[in-house]
């Protein structure tokens, strides 16, 4: 199956995972990369096919409109049967618009796909906040999927390729009707990024207030973790929206995920599908978070965290 993967600089983990997942199915995907040719070339270490890059100025000023314009032009030239996007803010924005322009069937938040006996592509995905799973069949010649890369079945590595990297010379004329980015504000976390962190410390409604997140920050510093939160904590205004984990936020792939005062709504748990070990600390032993946790403590996190940090510091020699 002729497959095109859409990737961007800064989201290389998702790009590699998608490439490996396609190779696992016996195909070699082409890549359209938004970023530098140098960064794109590194994706050959997991066996990508030919790579095209585009890094025009309009990508910074009007990322939505410019990105879709480049995608449409490239896809019409390359004529893929399947286009994969990562489930991040860019992929989720671009995919529906490209699907409309190309008349393609689109399935979002996919965790896997296969070709049915009728030759049609079938995509698996969680729905109803993770309470159910659905299969969607695409009826069109071109299918587009937005995938939760962390959950894809794929080998760890593949043989390096020597596929060519081509810098696209598309001149994308900006339209005066396009929205323009006036300011980009990076929330300067000191620790690792939430999606890529090996350890995540996340808090929910049970944390009880913005001030109380300081205790979680201390634990995060102790184990070099990223900070996360449930939707409830974001809605209360205790933490910024960029901390939100779940079906309606970020997906994490941490080895260790501390869920503190998080009851475990299905939509939150859906963001933990690729997390290896969940540790739940909650006063309510019946909270659904314990159903997905490997280890748990029924108790008040305010009493648990200080001695937990003390013991971890001893172990880690801090």
């Amino acid at each position, binding site marked *: 199956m002729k497959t095109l993967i859409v990737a961007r600089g800064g989201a290389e983990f998702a790009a590699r995972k998608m490439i490996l997942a396609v190779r696992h199915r016996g195909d070699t995907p082409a890549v359209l990369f938004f970023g530098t040719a140098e960064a794109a070339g590194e994706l050959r270490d997991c066996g990508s096919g030919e790579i095209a890059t585009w890094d025009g100025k309009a990508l910074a000023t009007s990322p939505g409109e410019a990105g879709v314009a480049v995608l449409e032009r490239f896809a019409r030239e390359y004529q893929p049967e399947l286009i994969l996007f990562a489930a991040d803010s860019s992929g989720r924005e671009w*995919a529906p618009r490209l699907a409309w322009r190309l008349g393609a069937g689109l399935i979002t938040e996919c965790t896997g796909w296969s070709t049915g006996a009728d030759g049609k592509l079938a995509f698996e995905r969680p729905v*109803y906040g993770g309470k159910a*799973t659905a299969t969607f069949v695409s009826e069109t010649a071109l299918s587009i999927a937005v995938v939760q890369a962390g959950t894809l079945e794929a080998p760890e590595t593949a043989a390096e390729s020597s596929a060519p990297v081509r810098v696209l010379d598309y001149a994308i004329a900006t339209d005066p009707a396009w929205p323009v980015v006036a300011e980009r504000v990076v929330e300067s976390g000191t620790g690792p990024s939430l999606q890529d962190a090996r350890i995540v410390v996340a808090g929910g409604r049970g944390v009880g207030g913005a001030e109380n997140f300081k205790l979680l920050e201390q634990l995060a510093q102790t184990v070099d973790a990223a900070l996360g939160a449930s939707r409830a904590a974001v*809605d209360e205004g205790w933490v910024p929206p*960029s901390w939100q984990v779940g079906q309606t936020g970020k997906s994490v792939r941490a080895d260790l995920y501390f869920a503190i005062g998080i009851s475990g709504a299905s939509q939150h748990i859906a963001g933990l599908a690729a997390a290896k070990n969940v540790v739940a600390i909650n006063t309510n032993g019946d909270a659904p978070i314990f159903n997905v946790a*490997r280890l748990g403590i029924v108790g008040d996190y305010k*009493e648990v965290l200080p001695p937990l940090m003390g013991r971890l510091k001893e172990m880690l020699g801090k």
Partner: protein
Amino acid sequence: MHALVCIKEVLDPEITPAQFRVNAQTRKAEVPGAALVTSIFDINALETALKLRDAAGAGTVTVLSLGARSAETILRKALGCSANAAVLLSDEAFAELDPAGVATVIAAAVKKLERDGKPVDVVMTGRQAADFEHGQTGGLLAEALGWPCLTFISKVKPMPGGLEARREIEDGHLLIHAKTPLVLTITNDETNQPRLPKVRDVMMANRAKIPVWGCAELDLDGAKLAPRVRASSLAVAQRDSHCEVVEGESAQAKAVALADRLRELKIV
């Protein structure tokens, strides 16, 4: 400014996994007695639109729902929160739409509003619905209308000729200046939480006449709404619990035991 907010009637997302059931034949959730509510991000979208109107000191917020006749209830609820007008899109031909079909129908409604002398400046949708969570309506609708689109917007301020929108991204946010008309998909933050309706508005809402538009009113050919994607199966997600609850005499003892287990399991 005329804002059109698209709201969807969904099964109450607070239903627990233990209560949740599906009908494998119809490929829909089936929980007898469960409430139907407004999809949560659509409530955030409504609140964002109401705040934009109130900040501008003028303007209109129209709420629209595509669905069964029962969706009139969530439209009245939105009117009770001070939305100015409501319209229901309902027709037998809309029963099994895919996201592209939904966008086609809503785009037809935007065009009808324009024909009726009520042109729309900004359409707001929730970032994704609480049932099938496609997260596609906003982007598809923007394309159907030929308008720009901004996704994951949490705050909106009026500006001459348009608006300033805050877009939430992975490592922070963008402040974006946009001209109207355009489509926004709205995500949650602390500023767009639902308000409590006023008694007077609720009474007015209960008396309001809500027009129902189908294929005839929208000048649509129902046969042209054939889906590009269709659900072929729906099943309750399987979960096996293997949680080891760490015991101890005190919180201190439990905490130390937890740290020790993490080390034994080579997790830290």
